[in-house]
């Protein structure tokens, strides 16, 4: 370890925030860019599965709530891209990396939303898992990232409550609505568990990220915490978790549960999820179709600046 590196690690250890102009190890910068950008991309791509139901939302109020939520997500994408930009990479560069497949977004968004209860499940389970990941990151070592996470977590927990509220209405509704809720539960449970990533035992990067306080808890800790929190909620809703081996373990004080099918996880990561192609196609199309708009607005801004200069 060099002097600089030691000094840096000391600051991290002392819970000081690292700011954009501070010296930082190249690996720290790269890992942070990858992590923040992936999170930003997830917010952007995450608009799509929910957007899929905006035009079919069953009431005006539900439509408004969903619009507000998707708007928030785009906003989160914006904060996070800004945080990533403080590390010396532009939003356009990051977008290109998303579109050419060299950067990822959360695999959960490669699953389809197939009935209205899925919108509840996305809020309750997916945002729930996301918050579980994000809450500790409010204490992450990188200042801009930490501040973005504080802002995001506040809104996310609101979204989660809204999702749970939809599930409640569905689970207490007509038989068809109950069936929708259970169907959503069946399809989203394991993908939600996968959101915490494979067990850290299998990950080489985790130790370094934890030392740098880019990562605060292990994947398995967070997953367990999520299960422990979610099972009673599901019971309250009267929904069955699609895991026959799920049960309370008196000894550990936690629920025992089945691992998701990690081969599915790796398939989705490889591009073989149910919606990978659609999601990336939709984002590429938005980007390509929007080129003339970005160019047009840029050209106008330049003309206006030139006119102002000429007038001075």
């Amino acid at each position, binding site marked *: 370890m060099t002097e600089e590196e030691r000094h840096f690690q000391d600051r991290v250890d002392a819970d000081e925030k690292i700011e954009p102009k501070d010296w930082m190890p190249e690996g720290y910068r790269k890992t942070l860019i990858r992590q923040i950008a992936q999170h930003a991309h997830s917010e*952007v*791509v995450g*608009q*799509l599965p*929910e*957007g899929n139901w*905006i*035009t*079919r*939302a*069953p*009431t*005006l*109020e*539900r*439509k*408004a709530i969903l*619009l*507000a939520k*998707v*708007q928030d997500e*785009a*906003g989160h*994408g*914006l904060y996070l*891209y800004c945080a990533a930009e403080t590390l010396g990479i532009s*939003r356009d560069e990051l977008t290109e990396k998303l579109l050419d497949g060299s950067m990822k977004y959360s695999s959960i968004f490669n699953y389809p939303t197939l009935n*209205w209860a899925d919108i509840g499940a996305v809020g309750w389970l997916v945002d729930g898992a996301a918050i579980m990941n994000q809450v500790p990151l409010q204490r992450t070592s990188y200042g801009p990232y930490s501040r973005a996470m504080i802002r995001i977590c506040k809104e996310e927990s609101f979204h989660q409550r809204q999702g749970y509220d*939809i599930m409640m*209405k569905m689970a207490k*509704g*007509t038989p*068809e*609505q109950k069936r929708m809720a259970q169907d959503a539960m069946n399809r989203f449970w394991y993908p939600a568990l996968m959101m915490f990533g494979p067990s850290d035992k299998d990950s080489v990067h985790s130790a370094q990220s934890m030392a740098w306080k880019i990562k605060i808890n292990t994947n398995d800790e967070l997953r367990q915490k999520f299960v422990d929190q979610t099972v009673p909620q599901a019971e309250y809703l009267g929904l069955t978790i699609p895991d026959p081996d799920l049960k309370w373990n008196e000894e550990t004080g936690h629920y025992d549960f089945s691992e998701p099918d990690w081969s599915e996880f790796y398939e989705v990561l490889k591009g073989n999820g149910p919606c990978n192609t659609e999601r990336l196609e*939709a984002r590429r*199309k*938005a*980007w390509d*179709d*929007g*080129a*003339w*708009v*970005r*160019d*047009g*607005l*840029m*050209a*106008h*801004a330049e*003309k206006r600046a030139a006119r102002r200069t000429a007038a001075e």
Partner: protein
Amino acid sequence: MDTALFEFCLRMGDNTLVLGHRVSEWCGHAPVLEEDIALANTALDLIGQTQFWLGLAGEVEGKGRDADTLAFRRDAWDFRSVLLVEQPNGDFGQTMMRQFLFDAWQSLMLDRLKDSSDVRVKAIAEKASKEVAYHLDRSRDTVVGLGDGTAESHSRMQAALDKLYPYVGELFGADEIDAEIAERGIAPLPADLRGAYDALIADIMAEATLTIPDSRWTHTGGRDGTRHSEHLGHMLTEMQWLQRAYPDARW
């Protein structure tokens, strides 16, 4: 029943409902993230206004239909949206041109409705006009920016204006309902807004270096429900699906 007021509220609320739906179709597909946010925000405001207008319509009707029932259980012929807002999104330029042409009208209308003799109408107008002033700022800037941008953005915006302008006149239509509503001081005669509207869009189109078509000829049939576009029916299949498929559910 106060038929004229009921119809007036439907005309206001169906415009915001249909346009809000159209704008919400953009979700996740805009040219840049800021636009995703702005479009979602516009849609959200329009849906909110719909809740007020259709809520008031249901109250005036007095048959127990609330805003949701009116939004999700009427077939196309009972809608009173103008054809302009039913038009498909097209490219981003066409969407923003449609938005500007509507925002300009809506801002003038709401401004006058703040003096409505009906306190409920007045209250909706007061709330909505703030939102719409913001929409108009945005859509105007975008129309100017893209009209006076590159050659391509200019020609796309001109094409959008040429395509949509023949739907503008319907906003200023006049029938017995309009006459009664104006007489009772609830709203101005739509035709009374035309002068200010023309002046506003002439200014903006000049700044955008775009040419307003000569002909004032206009399509009609939406605001009186006699002949909507084919687009509306397709929109409703999506919009109303859940309510139609599960009529007994509460959401």
